[in-house]
């Protein structure tokens, strides 16, 4: 039940950050940021380390409370909602460091993630459907600690999908992966987007970003530095200077 209701505001964006900031004492991790993610977008946040990308994700998920500004999801102000309420509204996240349950099996991990959203009779099929999509069905009885880093990342994406989210946040989905795994992950993200899931992701690998992103926001020192298509960002001299390099 969604008890806490939430002021409405009409806009075409699925997710909207309005003048959002997060200060840790004197450190302005995120400062007056405005970001709009439209329905169906495949939107990427890039920027140097410490630019505030992960902090933004944590604010969207309710892990951090913004120092200023508001966050809107489906035109509802979710700034004061608890994390679990945001997930129930349709936002889901894969964290930078895999938050899988290492001592349990793949199936048990998926079961924990999905059981809240499906009846018992549907649960197994749904889990297997997601595992198939991720290519980890053969690992379903494997203890998660025994999986490779890439497999754990996919499992965590699968767990994020279990709540049937409308918006999926992926914090460095291809971090630590080899070229083959990275290609598979890029393909996976494209597939998910084609299925209608809006995706906002963070990555440092520009080749990976170029493969899939349709819109890119560049953050620098906690502020929005530039925004546009991949081509526009690549041809922006200021972005090249601060982030992409002058080669």
């Amino acid at each position: 039940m969604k008890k806490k209701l939430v002021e409405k505001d009409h806009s075409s964006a699925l997710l909207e950050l309005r003048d959002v900031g997060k200060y840790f004492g004197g450190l302005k991790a995120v400062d007056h940021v405005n970001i709009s993610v439209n329905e169906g977008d495949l939107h990427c946040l890039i920027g140097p380390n410490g630019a505030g990308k992960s902090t933004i994700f944590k604010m969207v998920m309710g892990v951090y409370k913004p120092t200023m500004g508001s966050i809107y999801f489906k035109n509802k102000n979710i700034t004061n909602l608890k994390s679990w309420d945001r997930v129930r509204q349709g936002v889901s996240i894969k964290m930078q460091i895999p938050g899988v349950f290492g001592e349990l099996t793949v199936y048990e991990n998926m079961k924990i993630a999905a059981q809240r959203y499906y009846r018992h009779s549907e649960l197994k099929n749904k889990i297997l459907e997601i595992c198939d999509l991720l290519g980890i069905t053969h690992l379903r009885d494997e203890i998660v600690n025994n999986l490779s880093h890439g497999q754990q990342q996919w499992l965590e994406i699968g767990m994020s999908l279990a709540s049937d989210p409308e918006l999926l946040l992926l914090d460095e989905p291809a971090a630590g992966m080899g070229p083959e795994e990275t290609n598979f992950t890029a393909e996976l993200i494209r597939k998910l987007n084609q299925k209608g899931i809006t995706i906002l992701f963070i990555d440092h690998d520009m080749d990976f970003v170029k493969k899939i992103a349709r819109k890119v926001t560049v953050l620098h020192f906690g502020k929005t530095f530039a925004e546009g298509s991949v081509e526009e960002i690549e041809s922006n001299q200021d972005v090249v200077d601060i982030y992409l390099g002058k080669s």
Partner: protein
Amino acid sequence: MTLKTENVVAVLLFIGLFIYPLFVNPYQVMNLSYFLSMVFLSLSLALIWGYCGIFSFGQAVFFGVGGYFYAIFTMNSQLSTITPIGFILGILAGGVVAWILGYFMFYGGVNDVFVGLITLCLTLVLETFMGQTAGSEWKIGQVGLGGFNGINGIPTLQIGSLSLTGNNFYYFVLMILLIVFGLLKFLTHSKFGSSVIAIRENRDRTRLLGYNVPKIQSFVFAIGGALASLSGILYASWGSYITPSVFGLTSATIPVILVAAGGRKNFTASVIFTLLYYWFSQALSASGNQFALIILGLTLILAILFVPDGIVVALFNWCDHLFSRNKGKVKLEKGNLHEEKIS
């Protein structure tokens, strides 16, 4: 379905406990009634710590709340038939006190070692407070709290005209233990149990999967409080007395050690190790009860060093491994959600 050592041992244990009074004298039955009463205290900690990851010294608080509530409630009534109501209300009192404490801790973001510190402080504060209630002004209704001497002459549980003493009390406690054990097994194998285990494994991730983590933690903590309270009520009814020592450091620590050394993620292990400890402690009582504590402390150190999952659990696993090897099919125990394997 695989026949696991733990299940076989649990069944044999309960059969053994059921027929035990046929072979021993009433004194030994009375002793085992006491040991069984203390098992609920260990089970309460195994639930909240072993399954939900909430480390608490506070089970002694709820044990004392249950015991004192039962004493005060039943002694203020002149009717011996009121004891079942005192029994039920006492369990609820422990649960409610635990829920209130849990609510403020978990919704306030207090977790991990800080829960242990808060509950330890509460235990010690209650011991100190109850210890200074010797004056005649410290009365609830007609019942004086009695300071360090505590309350004596607590009525024995009575159901209708049946007074629960001797074998009656023994079988009453055993029946409740069977019910509680079954309910705990059911709870931890359910969907709810999976979410509880998820919180133990990774609280932050569980929250981001859509679970209201503080609500689940408060609920589990309340069940743990009710179980500890049940233990306190049975103890008060068994001995007809209760003193502030139930809130003491030793009382607060023993369940932690028993559950840790036996195997905190396993109810059967907690039951077995608790019974063994109290039996051992009683056997050593002629030469000084503190020996049992010293040996228990050493056992814990060795358990943490060599079998961190618990001594009894290690034995279960070893037997499982041995039997599956004998059958020619070594099968690793996977996970601990007890999920059926899919073909």
